[in-house]
């Protein structure tokens, strides 16, 4: 990813703004916020070159609590916004935060498209399986037949599996973690940010207010770390030739989500060119001088190109 100017070592507190989160007490989002603060500090990210793009939801309030560039956008659309930002300046660290509703219901099309692009951004999914901010409707990851607090009848939709969907869509880094486990989160988030390509961090995030099913206890009974159970687990593709096998293993692992829920890195493959690199094939200057730094006119405001030069074959 982009190079980071190291001027000083920052602490988690350096990334805190004065704004107090207005989440409910014990909300899983607090854990994610802390993990981001820690990860940013450990990576010593430059706040002016780190952009966090969020959608709309409880989760999406997070940029206001972080002293970095924060872009709080539209429900479901954080990924397209992030794409525009990243391409305008590929040297930026770009991170997307969103809820399960944000990214997998209204935003599912963009979620899939990001995989197809392998744009070098990290998507942090706050998965509470409900629509928090609109008062607890079923989210796309809530299992069918479950009746959580605020919904009038048991959920009629099947849950989608974010890890599997990410793998099916082409993400080259796919991981799952848990919002009350700060340490695990920090590790995974750091890797996702450092990964060169589209990364998904699927965070199991209890919503104590509305998700009365997937509670802290529920998760903690089920969660296990992949590499603890299987010390030989190595999700990293080091050679394109390995990709097929590692991908298949990741997909099979992803299918596991029920009584036991694996957390950790499922898949990581940096042998696939990023979208920026693909674009640079036809626009070679893009990775040398970021587009935002390229000139648009002469000093006195005259055009840099002429039709004669740009379109000689059209001159008649």
């Amino acid at each position: 990813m982009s190079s980071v100017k190291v001027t000083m070592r920052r602490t988690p507190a350096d990334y805190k703004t004065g704004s107090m989160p207005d989440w409910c007490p014990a909300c899983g989002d607090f854990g994610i916020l802390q993990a981001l603060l820690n990860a940013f500090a450990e990576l010593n990210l430059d706040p002016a070159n780190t952009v966090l793009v969020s959608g709309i939801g409880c989760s999406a309030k997070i940029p206001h609590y972080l002293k970095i560039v924060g872009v709080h956008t539209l429900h479901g659309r954080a990924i397209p916004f992030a794409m525009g930002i990243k391409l305008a300046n590929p040297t930026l660290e770009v991170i997307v935060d969103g809820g399960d509703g944000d990214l997998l219901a209204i935003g599912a099309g963009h979620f899939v498209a990001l995989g197809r692009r392998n744009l070098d951004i990290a998507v942090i999914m706050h998965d509470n399986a409900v629509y928090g901010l609109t008062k607890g409707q079923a989210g796309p990851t809530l299992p069918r037949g479950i009746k959580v607090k605020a919904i009038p009848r048991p959920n009629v939709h099947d849950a989608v599996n974010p890890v599997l969907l990410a793998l099916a869509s082409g993400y080259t880094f796919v991981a799952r973690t848990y919002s009350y486990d700060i340490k695990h989160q920090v590790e995974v988030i750091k890797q996702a940010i450092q990964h060169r390509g589209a990364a998904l961090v699927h965070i199991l995030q209890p919503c104590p207010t509305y998700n009365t099913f997937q509670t802290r206890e529920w998760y903690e009974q089920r969660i296990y770390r992949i590499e603890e159970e299987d010390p030989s687990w190595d999700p990293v593709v080091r050679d394109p030739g390995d990709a097929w096998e590692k991908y298949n293993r990741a997909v099979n692992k992803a299918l596991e989500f029920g009584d036991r829920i694996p957390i950790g890195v499922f898949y990581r493959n940096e042998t696939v060119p990023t979208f920026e690199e693909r674009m640079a094939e036809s626009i070679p200057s893009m990775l040398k001088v970021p587009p935002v730094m390229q000139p648009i006119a002469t000093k006195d405001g005259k055009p840099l190109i002429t039709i004669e030069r740009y379109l000689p074959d059209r001159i008649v």
Partner: protein
Amino acid sequence: MPQRRVDLYWLVGGPQGRGVETAAMVFLRSVAAAGYYAYGRREYWSNIAGRHSYFLGRISDVPVWSVKSKVQILMSIDGQTVIEHVRDVAPGGLVIYNKDEENRQFESYTMFSKKTMARLTKHFKEEGVETTVRGAVELYRRNGVRALGVSYNELLRKVGERIGIRDLITLGRFVSTLSVALGLAALGIPRDALRAGVEFSLGKRPNIVQQNMEVVNVAYETVENVFNLGASNANRDKAVLWNGNEAVAVGKIMGGIRFVSFYPITPAADEALFIESRPSVELDPSLEEAKLVDRLGVITIQAEDELAAVNAASGAAIAGLRASTTTSGPGFSLMAEGISFMGMAEVGVVVTLWMRGGPSTGLPTRTSQADLRFALHTGHGEFPRIVLASGDVEEAFYDAIKTANWAERYQVPVIHLLDKNLASSYMVMPLPRYDDIRIEATPVEVHSEPILVPRYDYPLGGLPRRIVFGVSNAYIHLAGNEHDEYGDVDEDAELARTMQEKRLKKLELIDREIPDEEKVRVYGDQGSDVAVVSWGSTKRAVLDALDELGGNMMFVQLRMFQPFPTAPVREALRKARRVIFVENNYMAQGASVLREKTGIEPDTVIVKYNGRPFTVDELVQLIDSAMRTGERRIVAYGEL
């Protein structure tokens, strides 16, 4: 400018996908090579191959950009063209057709529109001729049109002998060149001009050029020079041959736009694809700027849908890049939420809207001006925006540059209204006056240390700060929720009121800063009794119609609809005793805006909403009729 010595209307038609475009391009480039200005509008179905398609155009010594509903010369690739256009050639004109198809019945053309066929069948029956190509030829003759039938197969075989191809199917690929070469021969365009035409539309591979030039030779041997145009003696300056899509694409790049997102849609996609095929622009090495980068890049993104397209452009603009997205009605509908976001978060993006026939999928390849009100009011809530409509390809080019400047300066969505009539109409356009072009870069705030910057901390009536990500060394927050100066969400009532005022006061600033002549233009004598008012791509047809009508008339072209130039428009129309509003829609939307914003009620609205633009003669007749009868609403029917 020289006197108009030559002024000739032409049409070439055939089945979509069988060379109509190639033919038209050969034609246009050839007459351009002969020194003429020229124009050609493409009409086609939402279909890839087989449906009837045609180009309708004009050539002249002076720049032209309108058509009439009767042409002097009709060149046909197939018999259906001869049938469909049976009423479209002026007496004394010429139709060139393929004798081999003479016996073909209407029904043998399987992709004939049921409705069109039914209407033509009725017409042919009433006229007492058979429903075949031959019947059509008979009708042309009755109307005083010369019908020149030649056997295309015979001519192609002759070509085949010369270039060593026997197979008639293979030779079929030359039929497009043949059809226009026959026409160009009849027009008396110098044969060598056609080489430029062939190279332009078929490429410069010597083999191809040589083969097609044999087609040209055979055509010139077959047809006599009827119209005797020769080369133009106008001695015109260098010009560019392009259509509206291309002019806007180049205008954007010239105007500093470096990011264009789109989802494929007619008639917008060709603009983006044009850039996508020329993504990297080599700088003149003598420029100072070439030291930083030798080739500028323009990013085009084919998004997964228009929601992604509009918001990706917003993202690029937020980061500090000049960005645009281009679309048509259905896609624009999907952009409403993103545009509202721009209004709230104060993001400047040029949204190029190529209007086409609606509602819904409507007439995807036909023109209309029915999205004006939607452009003015799209997106929930209230926010400042600029809505500008260009009148012709030339204006569209310059406007693409201006809108790029405005979007950056005012950080508002700028909706650039164009239409299919502009998109796929080609013209030979005088080269731009580069000296008149200004790219006004807005100063960027740059800090020496990373610092928290309140992006929205600007005075009432001012402009938000311009921060470029990775350049400004600033960290800012930005939100689509109501927010404080720092972009942080707050719902305090006083804050909400003042932020709303800050944003909307920008409209007044924009109105003050942008000169009146960008907003409304008056052609002819301001003191005229009669004012024809219109907007968008009707401009040239109206101007040409007024030219023909003569008399005490002026044309008021509305260009900017938001902020609306109430005072200048009132002033322009102050003395008009009669106001006639012309537009390509049903509801007379432009007229409703005029009424809303100025209180002026047009005496007559002339509307057309069948997916086809106005022709000059139609307007001459209808404006005249409006003058005589004072009718309040006149509907134009012209089908070309």
